[in-house]
């Protein structure tokens, strides 16, 4: 289908600005192919149905809008854990702030290195899920990422990793534009926990493609940086094999624009895919969008989408979530809930929950709500001596709790909870 004129012009203008990074043969081919995909689909336009609730302009622009660096003045999240630690500063690998890239049960290499060589196994994974993920909806920023990503990590998990891998994305330059692309390949029965944190840059385009082979387990917990003006577009892809497990949780606090897309395919019998998120937005400058697409293409799989958004002072939260159950995916157990807690009348939550089911023996449910603090619960807490503001915070944590329960590791859930408490307490003053 031909692109509309405005879309064609916008896409041509942006493409003209792009110089593909240097690389080995496979990388050159992969990048050119990705650029071809982008050229064919065009960049998103505000009139596109999939971008109805979130304006793509600031992501389309050739240069990022500046974003002040925010110093929370506290210990970096996850930093006190025993991990293999990799740091990128404004999208550039920082060896002096990273551990040696090695660990038991896994091989790690930088994407830049893998792309520099003419032959690397990464070529069989890079951009593959991204390419598939344009059906039925185009995800142009992911194609842009595959074409222009400069670095990232390539991880092959062969056994049970003895420590989590932690990637921190530091933001130190007010005008930085980071494009990073991670590949995670979990071999049958392998296990890995991946922790990610930080704003990364003034503007961050992030793609992660995860192959979860039969019986493998992948846990992912992400805390996106709190810089108020940062912008982020992320795509998380995962393909799940038989009896495999994928669980991902994202905490989003602050940020001018966050759009986290996740595209998951359950393709082996008995797979489990959970994706959850908690967003904390304060002020009209906050816009947070979770766009999720889960495809059941095998029998007896379970999927859960649990998203909670706390919005105040004119903040905006968006949820677009879909469960697609393909013919033959019997005994599917699908669940989707998206809820917002609106702490005042100025904030808004825009939700588009969808189910599309082509099998007859499935259990799928979805729900979406917007609400204020429960007055009876507030009165109950206050009658026990808890001041109104503190009681409101407790009820806010109570609201978010269901999403936090999706985090497998209790100590990580506790760490996220502590950060949420801090976020609330600072706003209480």
């Amino acid at each position, binding site marked *: 289908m031909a692109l509309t004129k405005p879309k064609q012009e916008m896409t041509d203008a942006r493409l003209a600005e792009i110089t593909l990074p240097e690389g080995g043969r496979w990388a050159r081919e992969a990048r050119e192919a990705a650029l071809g995909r982008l050229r064919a689909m065009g960049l998103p336009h505000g009139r596109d149905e999939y971008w109805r609730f979130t304006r793509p302009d600031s992501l389309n622009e050739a240069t990022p809008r500046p974003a002040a660096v925010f110093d929370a003045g506290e210990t970096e999240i996850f930093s006190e854990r025993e991990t293999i630690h990799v740091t990128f500063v404004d999208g550039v690998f920082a060896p002096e702030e990273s551990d040696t890239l090695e660990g038991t049960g896994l091989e790690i290499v930088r994407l830049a290195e893998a792309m520099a060589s003419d032959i690397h196994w990464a070529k069989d994974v890079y951009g593959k899920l991204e390419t598939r993920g344009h059906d039925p909806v185009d995800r142009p920023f992911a194609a842009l990422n595959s074409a222009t990503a400069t670095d990232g990590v390539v991880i092959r998990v062969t056994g049970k990793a003895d420590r989590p891998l932690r990637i921190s994305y530091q933001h130190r330059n007010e005008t930085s534009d980071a494009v990073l692309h991670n590949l995670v390949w979990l071999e049958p029965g392998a296990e890995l926990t991946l922790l990610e944190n930080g704003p990364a840059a003034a503007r961050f385009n992030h793609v992660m493609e995860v192959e979860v082979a039969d019986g493998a387990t992948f846990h992912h917990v992400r805390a996106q940086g709190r810089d108020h003006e940062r912008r982020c577009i992320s795509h998380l892809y995962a393909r799940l094999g038989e009896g495999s497990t994928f669980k991902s949780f994202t905490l989003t606090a602050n940020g001018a624009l966050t759009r986290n897309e996740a595209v998951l395919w359950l393709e082996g019998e008995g797979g489990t895919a959970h994706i959850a998120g908690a967003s904390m937005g304060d002020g009209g400058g906050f816009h947070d969008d979770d766009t999720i697409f889960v495809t059941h293409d095998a029998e007896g799989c379970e999927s859960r989408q649990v998203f909670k958004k706390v919005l105040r002072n004119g903040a905006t939260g968006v949820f677009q979530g879909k469960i697609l159950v393909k013919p033959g995916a019997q005994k599917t157990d699908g669940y989707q809930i998206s809820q917002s807690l609106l702490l005042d009348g100025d904030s808004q939550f825009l939700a588009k929950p969808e189910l599309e089911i082509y099998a007859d023996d499935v259990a799928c449910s979805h729900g979406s709500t917007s609400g204020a603090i429960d*007055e009876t*619960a507030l009165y109950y807490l206050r009658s026990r001596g808890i001041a109104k503001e503190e009681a409101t915070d407790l009820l806010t944590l109570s609201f978010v709790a269901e999403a936090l329960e999706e985090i497998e590791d209790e100590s990580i859930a506790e760490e996220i909870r502590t950060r949420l408490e801090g976020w609330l307490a600072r706003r209480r003053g």
Partner: protein
Amino acid sequence: MLNIKGLKVDLEEEDKQILKGVDLEVGAGQVHAIMGPNGSGKSTLSYVLSGRDGYEVKEGSATLDGEDLLDMDPEERAAAGLFLAFQYPVEIPGVGNMTFLRTAYNAQRKARGEPEASAAEFLKLVREKAKDLKIDADMLKRPVNVGFSGGEKKRNEILQMAVLEPKMCILDETDSGLDVDAMKLVAEGVNALRSEGRSFLVITHYQRLLNHITPDVVHIMSEGRIIKTGGPELALEVEENGYGNILGETA
């Protein structure tokens, strides 16, 4: 202790008068019971005293040891020593019972200018009190009232009362939904808290709770007024003859 004079209260949304002039004085160390048919205003009185939204005080006063209750926020009333055991304790998912108790305990201490308790000190305090009420560690760990049985919820209310040590306790139909054993346990908890400096206002439909918590004074409430006051025998009279006779007498 508690002094209520000529209290007239409207339901805000309906512009309807619920309390039509309540006078009540509960002395230090006393247990008063308020009985009355449905819709007589018993629960409203407990809500108004504890500061629930939705009511408008038209006339009258309510003081606790001379302090004007009606002028305070609910949390200030709690810090001043007022406690309401809810008829329907509220479930709060995601907030541990222990966290809730400690937050409330420390909030009140802070409001009174007293030092806050450390986590370890507090744990010790709660464990002792919980044991008497047969509340196990699991119930303390679980989210507030979530998945609790009716009896567990009421015991949890009494635990909060035992931990917060208020001077004026109001029990709003604490016996509703309890079997005999649970009621005994709750009553024992209340009796253990009876002391010279602590008063109780027990709101109930039935006399049976008063078999376990013996009141000093019994009031009968009807249509927003206290229409009769007497000793424990008044409760027995209600049990035997219902409210009909008493309502008839005063009509």
